[in-house]
């Protein structure tokens, strides 16, 4: 099988900064790492490769030059080939333009390497937080997709059966390949890099493509190609500490809490 993982390099912090004029995320001068949710997608891709002999994993990212580091890390964790889609023209893309760009890159990977069977994404990023891009890529590629996958029940070259996590339980769904799934963190525990993997990653050749190389339509990429209009954006006020309920014993604290909730008419 040919498995493709889409990853994004995001700020290594919970303190995301927004550019007040464009309303887009600030990327300059921030320490970056692989989006935590994408690490589960990477791990699952490598596990699928181990489950189906003869499989290969490609990893793709759209991002500035320094995003190459994220791709090298992905190779260290077991991916075979890495593709870096990078161009000033991609800057400021919303989720529509991003998913368009990534789908064009995936088409190109399929062309230069081989057709893909399964695409994996993290359920969302820790900076944009939308969860749009995975399903968006599937939509552009016109392939089935399932989000919030917590387990891959079965995998065969022609189909994949997954467990979709829902608020009230889970669904078991089977998708014909080619398809896309986006995964939640319950799906696995990502492995740590090995020394041999890390050294191989340093030497790996990473394919770089600009907008022209993937044949992207200029009107569909970057800030100008993004239909989203940000009317206003701001950093939410930091969460306050909340109220601490004191008491000598657990029973006393519980009593006070219940009284408080009654008073607020919450119970």
């Amino acid at each position, binding site marked *: 099988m040919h498995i493709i993982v889409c990853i994004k390099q995001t700020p290594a912090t919970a303190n995301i900064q927004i550019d007040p004029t464009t309303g887009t995320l600030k990327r300059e001068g921030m320490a970056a790492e692989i989006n935590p949710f994408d690490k589960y997608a990477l791990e699952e891709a490598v596990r699928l490769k181990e489950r189906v002999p003869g499989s290969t994993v490609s990893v793709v990212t759209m991002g500035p030059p320094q995003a190459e580091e994220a791709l090298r890390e992905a190779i260290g964790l077991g991916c075979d080939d890495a593709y870096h889609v990078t161009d000033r023209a991609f800057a400021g893309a919303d989720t529509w333009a991003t998913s368009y760009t990534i789908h064009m890159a995936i088409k190109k990977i399929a062309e230069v390497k081989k057709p893909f069977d399964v695409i994996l994404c993290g359920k969302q990023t820790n900076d944009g937080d939308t969860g749009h891009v995975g399903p968006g890529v599937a939509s552009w590629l016109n392939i089935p997709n399932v989000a919030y996958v917590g387990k891959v029940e079965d995998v065969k070259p022609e189909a994949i059966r997954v467990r979709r996590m829902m608020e009230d339980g889970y669904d078991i769904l089977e998708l014909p390949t080619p398809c896309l799934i986006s995964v939640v963190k319950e799906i696995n525990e990502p492995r740590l890099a090995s*020394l041999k993997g890390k050294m191989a990653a340093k030497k790996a050749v990473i394919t770089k493509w600009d907008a022209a190389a993937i044949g992207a339509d200029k009107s569909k990429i970057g800030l100008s190609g993004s239909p989203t209009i940000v009317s206003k954006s701001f950093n939410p006020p930091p969460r306050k500490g909340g109220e601490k309920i004191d008491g000598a014993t657990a029973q006393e604290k519980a009593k006070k809490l219940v009284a408080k909730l009654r008073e607020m008419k919450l119970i």
Partner: protein
Amino acid sequence: MDYELTEQQQAIVDITREIAQKKIKPVREHYDKTEEYPWEIVEELRKADLFGVYIPEQYGGLGGGAFDLVLVVEEISKVCAGMALIIAGTALGAYPIILHGNEEQKKKYLPDLATGKRLGAFTITEPDAGSDATAAKATARLEGDHYVLNGTKVYCTNGKAAEIYTLFFSTNPSRGARGVSAFIVEKGTPGFEFGRKEEKMGIRASPTYQLEFNNCKIPKENLLGKEGLGLLVAQSTFDVSRPGVAGQALGIATGAMEEAFAYARMRKQFGQPVISFQAMQHKLANMAMDIEASRAFLYSVARAMDKKTQKRYTKESAMVKCFCSDVAMRVTIEAVQMCGGIGYMRDFPVEKFMRDAKITQIYEGTNEVQRNEIAMHLIKEAAQTGLGKK
């Protein structure tokens, strides 16, 4: 300070640190309390390829040297010095094979030691032979194509967990020190049993066993080097392994300082963080100076050893082992003091560093023996240069 590590060495540090922080830190208290063997951590270290950093590539290792091993041991010891012995103890068993093994022995044992599939151990100590290794009583008698081993070895690090043991027996008791020979003994050989498990002050995640040999037959091919050259095997092993103990001590000191410093920044007394008091600041400065001096000294010796700038490093390896372990003891005592009452408590990690530090002044040659060696070398050198003679 930037010590200009190579790419591979930096990768070793990064990977080991990640395992230490994410996998070892959450469980170190458990293994310190229970003295169980941390097989889950052995598995993590295997998966990360960290067992073979110092083993030549043709035997499945990564082809680095003593410095690479020091870095692994230091990083693990910053979190748990006991678990650092998973690799350091295995290295102590592997080095005699690297240094004195023949091609068959290297091919047979090093690949498994390099991947960590099988762990290694090394023991020379006996109930009546500690610093005086020449007093060893355990014997190996040649009978046809076998040696028959008899006697008791004590304080075997990695005991029972390890499968490949480098051990020392007298093949000719009448010759004393010159009658001692080195052997490779595999776990499971009939007549090789594990005796008591020691209950220790520190490094409690690392098992220490007594080994009993009762007419244990091993193939003649398991003799390491030549008969009667056992002490040379041991001494040349210590030359390269003592920097590992120094690395363990350096890690302990660094880990203890980090914990104590973090606490002193947070802890408020008299309305301010205790680190704002000069008494604390001076302790911190002294610790930092001790640690940086240790690191600079150890790294320069380890690097020189890997470049083979001279034939033997007996004096220098004794110096770094002795220096770094004395620093570890000093720093950990001060770290407990900096934390006050909580520093003395078992559920706060600083007292563990202090308990772990003590062994580094004792094993692989007590620091008294290290000083003897250093002085003996200085006197020998003086005799060669004619120092003090008119």
